C-alpha cells in the first residue's frame, strides 16, 4: 500500500537532481547518490540501497532516497525511522528542508501510520503538510485526509474537478465524497456527482509525468510520452463507479436504474462477483424469474468455489418453486445436490497443503481464490514469496564468499613466501652491500689523510708513484752498501715533487669523480633499501589478511545462520498459511453441508408437491 507513494517521490527526488554540474569535482555523497540512481532506474532497489549506504556522508536528499528504497523493498519500519529522523533534523536545524521533500516525508509517514491503524499519528503528520505552490501532492493529501477522518470527511459544494484535475487520486476522492453524501441521506446528489465523474476518468490520463508513478509501475518511467493510465485501471475505476451507482440506486429502490447498469456489467472485472450478487438481489425483488435464473447460472459458472455460486445453486430450485414449476424445481434441486457433492470433492482435492513452489505458480483454482480474496492469506503468500527471493540469492552470496576465501588464502600463501624466503634473502644482501660500502668509505677517508696515498691514484700516475716508492725504498739499502746516493736521492726528491704537483693539480678532479661514484652507489643502495621497505610493508599484510580470513569465516557463519532463519521463518509462515487454508476448507465444507441439508429439505418439500399433483392427476385420470 505504502509502496504506491514511493515511486512517485523517488521520481520527484530525481527531478531535483542538478542538471548542470556545478563544478568539475563532485562531492563524494553526490557520486554515490547518482550511482544509486543508476540502479534505481534499472529497477534494482536492493543494489541502489547498497550503493547509497556506502556513501561516507549523506545529505537529506540521499536520506529520502534511502527511505524510498526501503519502501520499495517492503521495509516500511526502516523507512519510517529514516523519515522521522529527517524531519527531526529539519526541525532542529531550521535549515529549510525543501518543502516538496518535507511534504513527501510527511505524507509517507501519515500513510504508514494509517496502515498500522494509528489514526491520531496519521492526523498529526497530515496536519503538518504544507501547501506547495504547485499543489503536486494535493491529491495524496486529500485522499489521506479522507481516510483518516472517515466518515466525517469534508465535502465541497461541487466536486473539485478543476482543482484536482492533475491528481491521479481524483476519482477516489470524488467517489468517497459521493459515498459520504449518500450516508448523509443525500444520495441523489451523490448520484449526480458520480455521473459527472464517470466521463472524467479519461481526463486523468493527461497527467504530469512524475505524478504518474502513483500507479506503482516503474516501467512507465522510461516512456517519453509520459504516463497513461493503463487501460485496465481505467476500466476498473469505471466498474467501481458503476457499481457504486447501482448500489445507491438500490438503496433508493430505483431498481430499473440499477438494472440498466448491472445488466451490462463486464464479466471479467474484479467486481463482477459483487455486481452479479447485486443483480440477483434486484431481480429477486422484481421477480424477474427468467432473468434471475440466467444470473444464477452465470454466478455458478463464473465464480467457482464462491459463496454466491453455492447459494445460487439451491436458489434456482427456489425460484422455480416460486414460479410454480415444481417439476422443474425438483430437477433443479436434484442438480444442486449433485453440484454440492461435486464441489465438496473438488475443494477437498484442491485444498491440499501448499509448497513454496506451488505458491510461486499460484496453486489450484480453489487455493488461488482463497489467496486473492483474503487479506491475511494474501499477505502471508507475499511474505513467503519474498523470503523465497532472499533464499534464492543465497547461493550467489555463498559463491562470492567462497571466491573471497580463495583469494585470501592465495594472498596469505604469497605473504608467507615473501616473509619466509624473499625478504630475508634481500635483507641479507642489502646489508652486505651496505657493509661493503661503508668499508670503502672508511678506506677512502683513511687514504685521504695521507698526502699521496697510493690507493687514491690509478693508471699511469699510479705506476709512476709505485715505482718511485719502490725506488725510495731501495735508497736506504744502497746507502748501507756504501754507495753515493746523494745525487740519486735528490733526483728522487725532484721526481716526488713533480708527482706532488701533478697530484695537487688533479686532486680536485679525482675527488669529484670519486664523490660522484660514491653518490651513485649510495643512491642505488638507498633505492634498494626503499624497495625492500615497501616489500616489507606488503609483507606486513599478513595480520590484515588473517583478520579478513576471520571476518570471512564469521560472514560465512552469519550467512548460514541467516539462511536458516529465513528458511525457518518461511516454513513457519507457510505452515500458518496452510493452517488458515485448512480452516477455510473446514468452514466451507461446513457451509456446503448446511446448504446440502437445506437443499434436501427443499427437495423433500417439492417432491411432496409433485407426488400430490401426480396423485391428483392420476386420480383425475382414473375417475
Amino acid at each position, binding site marked *: 500500500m505504502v509502496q504506491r507513494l514511493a515511486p512517485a517521490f523517488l521520481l520527484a527526488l530525481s527531478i531535483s537532481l542538478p542538471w548542470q554540474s556545478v563544478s568539475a569535482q563532485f562531492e563524494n555523497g553526490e557520486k554515490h547518490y547518482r550511482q544509486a540512481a543508476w540502479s534505481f532506474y*534499472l*529497477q534494482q532497489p536492493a543494489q541502489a540501497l547498497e550503493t547509497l549506504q556506502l556513501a561516507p556522508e549523506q545529505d537529506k536528499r540521499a536520506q529520502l532516497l534511502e527511505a524510498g528504497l526501503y519502501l520499495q523493498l517492503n521495509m516500511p519500519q526502516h523507512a519510517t525511522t529514516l523519515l522521522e529522523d529527517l524531519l527531526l533534523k529539519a526541525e532542529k536545524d531550521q535549515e529549510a528542508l525543501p518543502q516538496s521533500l518535507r511534504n513527501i516525508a510527511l505524507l509517507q509517514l501519515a500513510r504508514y501510520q494509517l496502515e498500522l491503524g494509528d489514526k491520531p499519528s496519521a492526523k498529526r503528520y497530515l496536519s503538518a503538510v504544507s501547501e506547495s505552490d504547485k499543489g503536486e501532492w494535493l491529491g495524496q493529501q486529500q485522499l489521506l485526509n479522507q481516510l483518516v477522518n472517515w466518515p466525517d470527511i469534508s465535502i465541497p459544494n461541487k466536486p473539485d474537478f478543476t482543482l484536482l484535475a492533475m491528481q491521479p487520486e481524483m476519482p477516489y476522492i470524488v467517489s468517497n465524497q459521493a459515498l459520504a453524501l449518500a450516508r448523509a441521506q443525500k444520495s441523489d446528489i451523490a448520484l449526480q456527482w458520480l455521473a459527472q465523474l464517470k466521463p472524467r476518468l479519461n481526463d486523468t490520463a493527461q497527467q504530469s509525468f512524475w505524478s504518474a508513478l502513483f500507479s506503482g*509501475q516503474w*516501467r512507465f518511467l*522510461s516512456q517519453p510520452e509520459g504516463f497513461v493510465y493503463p487501460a485496465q485501471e481505467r476500466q476498473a475505476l469505471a466498474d467501481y463507479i458503476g457499481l457504486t451507482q447501482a448500489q445507491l440506486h438500490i438503496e433508493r429502490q430505483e431498481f430499473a436504474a440499477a438494472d440498466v447498469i448491472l445488466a451490462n456489467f463486464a464479466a471479467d472485472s474484479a467486481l463482477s462477483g459483487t455486481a452479479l450478487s447485486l443483480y440477483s438481489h434486484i431481480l429477486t425483488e422484481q421477480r424477474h424469474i427468467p432473468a434471475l435464473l440466467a444470473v444464477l447460472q452465470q454466478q455458478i459458472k463464473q465464480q467457482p468455489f464462491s459463496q454466491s455460486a453455492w447459494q445460487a445453486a439451491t436458489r434456482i430450485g427456489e425460484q422455480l418453486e416460486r414460479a410454480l414449476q415444481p417439476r422443474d424445481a425438483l430437477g433443479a434441486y436434484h442438480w444442486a445436490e449433485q453440484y454440492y457433492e461435486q464441489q465438496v470433492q473438488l475443494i477437498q482435492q484442491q485444498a491440499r497443503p501448499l509448497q*513454496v*513452489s506451488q505458491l*510461486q*505458480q*499460484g496453486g489450484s483454482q480453489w487455493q488461488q481464490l482463497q489467496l486473492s480474496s483474503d487479506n491475511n492469506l494474501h499477505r502471508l503468500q507475499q511474505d513467503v514469496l519474498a523470503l523465497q527471493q532472499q*533464499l*534464492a540469492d*543465497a*547461493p550467489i552470496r555463498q559463491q562470492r564468499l567462497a571466491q573471497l576465501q580463495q583469494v585470501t588464502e592465495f594472498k596469505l600463501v604469497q605473504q608467507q613466501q615473501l616473509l619466509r624466503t624473499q625478504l630475508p634473502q634481500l635483507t641479507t644482501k642489502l646489508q652486505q652491500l651496505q657493509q661493503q660500502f661503508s668499508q670503502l668509505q672508511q678506506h677512502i677517508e683513511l687514504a685521504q689523510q695521507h698526502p699521496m696515498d697510493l690507493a687514491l691514484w690509478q693508471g699511469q700516475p699510479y705506476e709512476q708513484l709505485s715505482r718511485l716508492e719502490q725506488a725510495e725504498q731501495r735508497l736506504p739499502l744502497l746507502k748501507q752498501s756504501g754507495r753515493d746516493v746523494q745525487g740519486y736521492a735528490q733526483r728522487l726528491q725532484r721526481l716526488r715533487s713533480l708527482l706532488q704537483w701533478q697530484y695537487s693539480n688533479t686532486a680536485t678532479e679525482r675527488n669529484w669523480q670519486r664523490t660522484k661514484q660514491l653518490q651513485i652507489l649510495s643512491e642505488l643502495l638507498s633505492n634498494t633499501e626503499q624497495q625492500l621497505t615497501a616489500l616489507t610493508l606488503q609483507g606486513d599484510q599478513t595480520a590484515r589478511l588473517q583478520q579478513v580470513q576471520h571476518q570471512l569465516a564469521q560472514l560465512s*557463519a552469519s550467512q*548460514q545462520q541467516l*539462511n*536458516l532463519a529465513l*528458511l525457518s521463518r518461511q516454513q513457519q509462515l507457510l505452515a500458518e498459511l496452510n493452517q488458515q487454508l485448512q480452516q477455510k476448507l473446514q468452514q466451507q465444507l461446513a457451509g456446503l453441508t448446511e446448504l446440502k441439508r437445506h437443499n434436501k429439505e427443499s427437495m423433500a418439500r417439492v417432491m411432496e408437491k409433485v407426488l400430490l399433483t401426480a396423485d391428483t392427476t392420476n386420480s383425475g385420470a382414473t375417475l
Partner: protein
Amino acid sequence: MKSSILAVVFSLYCSLLHAAPAPDFTLKALDGANLRLAEQRGDIVLINFWASWCGPCIQEMPQLDKLAQKYQMLGVQVWGVNVENDSAAAKAYLNKVQVQFPVLFDTDNSASKAYQVEAMPTTVIIDKDGQLRTVHRGYKPGYEKKYEDDIKTLLRE
C-alpha cells in the same frame, strides 16, 4: 559438523525449486534499437534462437509471427535471436520475409551460450517474473501449439 549438515539440507531444499532466473542480456535488434531482457519484467517473453542455414528455423518463422500478433495485446513478447557470427544471410532473409516481432543479433554468441543453446532452433519461454519456465529444442510442425499452451498457462498466473 552441525553447520555442514544444515548446508546439505539447505542445498537439497534449493534443488527442489523449479524455476531459475533467465540469464539477462542486451542485444541489438534489426531496427538498431538495443533491447534488454530484464527490462521486459511483467511481460511473458518467448525467445527463439535461430540461424538462417537451419531449415526448421525458417519453417517456424511464420508460426512465430502469428503467435506474436495474436498475443501481443496480452503482454506477451516474441523475440527472435539470430546466433550467426555473420548476420548478412539472416538480414537478407529478413528483408524478404518480414516479421513483426523484434529480431536480435547475438553475433558473439554470449546469449546463446548463457542459455546453453545447442540444437537449432531452440525456443525458451520466460514468465512475468523473469524466470525461465520452458525450453523446447528443435522444431516440428505443431510445436507452435505447445508454445501457445505454455503461454496460456503463464498468462493465467
